[in-house]
């Protein structure tokens, strides 16, 4: 605290010095400005304007010096005062420090004393607590004894109560038992009386039922007899009815028999009449038959006559036809002879021509076989070297014209017809180049400087 105060005071002093110096400077400057203003009235050259009153200047200088002295004096006094104050402050600070030290010592002592007191109090407290605890334990023991005593009393009281309750219950049970026995006895007596009455009533019932059964049997027996009489009567009536029926049926049969005989006689009469008519019809039919047979005989006679006439005519015709056939056969024979002669002539000519052809073919076959072999070798080589791009569309075709050197080296490959797919076209050209040099034919005259290739994959 005191150090800070001193520093603040020093700073204040320094500030004061600065302010004073500043004021002095302002004064000096203002003097500087004022000096030319005095001679500002003259229009002459600046160098001639430096004419001044020496005494005024001396007085002015004196005045300034006086001022400076005053200021310096004041400053010195102030500094001295500051130094004094600083010294005082230092003294105060030292006093303060001493006071603080004293205070701290006092505080330390007080703390020690306080701590001792605290320790003392703690001990007392501990003793008090121990005492309290002991008292509490004693009280607890007493409470426990009281509690045990209470429990004993309670147990005794409960035992007494139980005993009293059991005695009362015993008494009650005895009374109950006696009441039950009495009731049972009464109930048994009543039951016995009831059973007796029941028996008597049952006896009466049995007698009554026996009587009723007897009456019913009598009634049944009588009813049976009546039924038998009725059945006998019914049987008799049935026999009579059957007899009457038999008589009626006999009469009916008799009537039917008479009717049948009458019908038979009528039928006999009708049959005789029909027989007569049939005989008459047959007689007429026989006569008609005879007449028709006569006519037929005449017709056959006539036919026989006509047929003989025709036979004669046919024989004549056959004779004429035979004559004609013999003449035709002779003509055909002559024609056949002529045809065979011509065929023989033709066969001879054909044989001669075939021989000629055979000769021609043999000549060209050799060339053909050699050409086929040449083409086959080139084809195999190119096919072996053709790597078709995968996933190229189906149906791509490319035709190239290849120019080869006499040794088979490929000199030029030109696309004549593009597939439209650049990669496919490239693969075709590469196949040709990779096959260079192309195989040569056995017969050099078969060498073809230019070959056209049609690349047309099958799948």
């Amino acid at each position, binding site marked *: 605290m005191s150090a800070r105060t001193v520093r603040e005071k020093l700073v204040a002093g320094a500030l004061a010095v600065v302010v004073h110096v500043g004021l002095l400077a302002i004064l000096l400057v203002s003097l500087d400005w004022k000096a030319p203003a005095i001679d500002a009235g003259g229009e002459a050259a600046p160098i001639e304007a430096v004419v001044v009153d020496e005494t005024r200047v001396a007085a002015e200088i004196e005045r300034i010096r006086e001022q400076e002295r005053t200021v310096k004096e004041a400053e010195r006094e102030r500094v001295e005062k500051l130094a004094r104050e600083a010294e005082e402050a230092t003294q105060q600070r030292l006093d303060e420090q001493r006071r603080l030290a004293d205070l701290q010592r006092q505080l330390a002592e007080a703390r020690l004393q306080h701590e001792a007191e605290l320790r003392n109090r703690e001990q007392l407290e501990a003793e008090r607590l121990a005492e309290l605890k002991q008292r509490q334990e004693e009280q607890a023991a007493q409470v426990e004894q009281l509690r045990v005593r209470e429990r004993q009393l309670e147990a005794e009281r409960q035992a007494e109560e139980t005993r009293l309750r059991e005695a009362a219950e015993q008494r009650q049970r005895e009374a109950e038992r006696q009441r039950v026995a009495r009731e049972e006895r009464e109930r048994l007596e009543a039951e016995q009386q009831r059973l007796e009455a029941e028996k008597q009533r049952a006896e009466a019932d049995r007698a009554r039922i026996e009587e009723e059964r007897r009456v019913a049997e009598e009634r049944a027996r009588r009813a049976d007899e009546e039924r038998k009489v009725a059945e006998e009567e019914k049987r008799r009536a049935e026999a009579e009815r059957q007899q009457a029926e038999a008589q009626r049926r006999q009469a009916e049969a008799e009537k039917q028999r008479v009717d049948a005989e009458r019908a038979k006689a009528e039928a006999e009469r009708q049959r005789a009449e029909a027989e007569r008519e049939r005989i008459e019809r047959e007689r007429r039919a026989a006569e008609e038959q005879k007449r028709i047979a006569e006519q037929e005989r005449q017709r056959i006679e006539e036919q026989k006559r006509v047929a003989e006439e025709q036979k004669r005519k046919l024989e004549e015709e056959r004779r004429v036809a035979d004559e004609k056939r013999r003449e035709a056969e002779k003509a055909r024979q002559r024609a056949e002879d002529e045809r065979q002669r011509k065929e023989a002539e033709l066969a001879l000519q054909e044989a001669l021509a075939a021989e000629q052809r055979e000769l021609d073919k043999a000549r060209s076959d050799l060339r053909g076989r050699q050409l086929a072999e040449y083409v086959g070798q080139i084809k195999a080589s190119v096919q072996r070297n053709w790597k078709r791009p995968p996933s190229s569309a189906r149906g791509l075709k490319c035709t190239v014209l290849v120019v080869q050197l006499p040794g088979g080296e490929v000199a030029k490959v030109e696309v*004549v017809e593009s597939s439209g797919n*650049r990669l496919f076209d490239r693969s075709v*050209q590469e*196949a040709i180049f990779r096959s260079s040099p192309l195989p040569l034919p056995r017969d050099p*005259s078969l060498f073809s400087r230019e070959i056209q290739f049609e*690349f*047309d994959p099958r799948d």
Partner: protein
Amino acid sequence: MLRSKMNAAVLALVCALGIAAMPGPARAVLTIRITESTEAALPIAIVPFGFAGGAAGARAPENIGQIVADDLARTGRFDPIAFPDLPSRPSSVADVNFGDWRILGTANLVIGRVEARGPEQYAITFRLFDVFRATQLAGFEIVATTRDLRRTAHQISDIVYETLTGERGAFDTRVAYVTEGRDANGERRYALQVADSDGANPFPVLDSVQPILSPSWSPDGARLAYVSYEAGRPQVYVQELATGRRDAVAAFPGTNGAPAFSPDGSRLALTLSKDGNHEIYVLDLAGRRLRRITDDPAIDTEPAWSPDGASIVFTSDRGGKPQIYQVPASGGEARRMTFVASDDYNARASFSPDGRRLAFVHGVGGRFRIAVLDLETSAVNVLTDTRLDESPSFAPNGTMILYATVSGGSSVLAAVSTDGRMRQQLAATEGKAREPAWSPFRSRR
């Protein structure tokens, strides 16, 4: 072409006259028909690129020759010769001896050189030769920074591929996919990654502790639409790749899922359940107007646009099991498209860029494979023989299909040629990689 035809005609005439002078019947030029071949990839020799400049003993930061060889091999159409089997390793025209390569039977040769031009600055020159004709088919010089060297390699692959096949290459493209892994504290983390078409240079464009699903490229390749669960439920976002700026474009109650950009980039087809059931909607991105496309009590999801923008295909279980249906993009009657004999499960369709084929996941007996339906012939061709393949998408040139599959207990990215002949896993990523989507073509540099 016309000139070559005329030449052929003249030649044929001369030949015919020549042969006519010989005895025997007159013949035209000797013609040989070639019908047999082996189907095989075209052999090509790619020489490791030379390196010049830089400090003594310095090496090129990337093996460009290897990247080009791998790119071409992955298509199944080219068969690059293994480096140890190369007869020589020229890096300039003067060093090429065509005879060596003719003996090898290789028609095509690629050589190149990387030259250090300054810090992180390289000039890459390469040439493609026709070995048999000893002519140069293509040659370029490309300047690139270290960071762009791989991309330059893919661009070289594109040039070689296009020169030899006549089709545009799709190597200088990107793939987007989702990875799932755990961070240092064992926390599950999801990331939306964008990598080169070969899986190299993966770069996370979004990182989240919640699942991310179904990335879909905008047709200009500048934006990705995807599903994120970061709000506690699935919502659809569109993110600009250059700036990272993102917008939740669909945050309706219920599911917001399976976004797909329309071919003109102005709309998104997506699945919403805001009206109580999963249906297909089309969202106009400028006006944020919604149009409902399907209306069926079954689940309709996974929409994909036809390249002409006229129709949308989607997955629906309205027939009992998931099958693929097609509906006009303005809504209307849905028509079932998949009638595979086994009829088990067909889902997640996407169109080929020419609109003539449909790739989809075909499930039979618990095995899910990638299949292609030819829309003209209705023929179905199953391309893969793995077990849990998902999320097929065509390369922008239609020659390959990117998908995710399970290998070695983890989910990885793989590509298959559309004829199913060539299958290859992409560069390995950390954690599981799922839901890949192949980007559109990038504008050529």
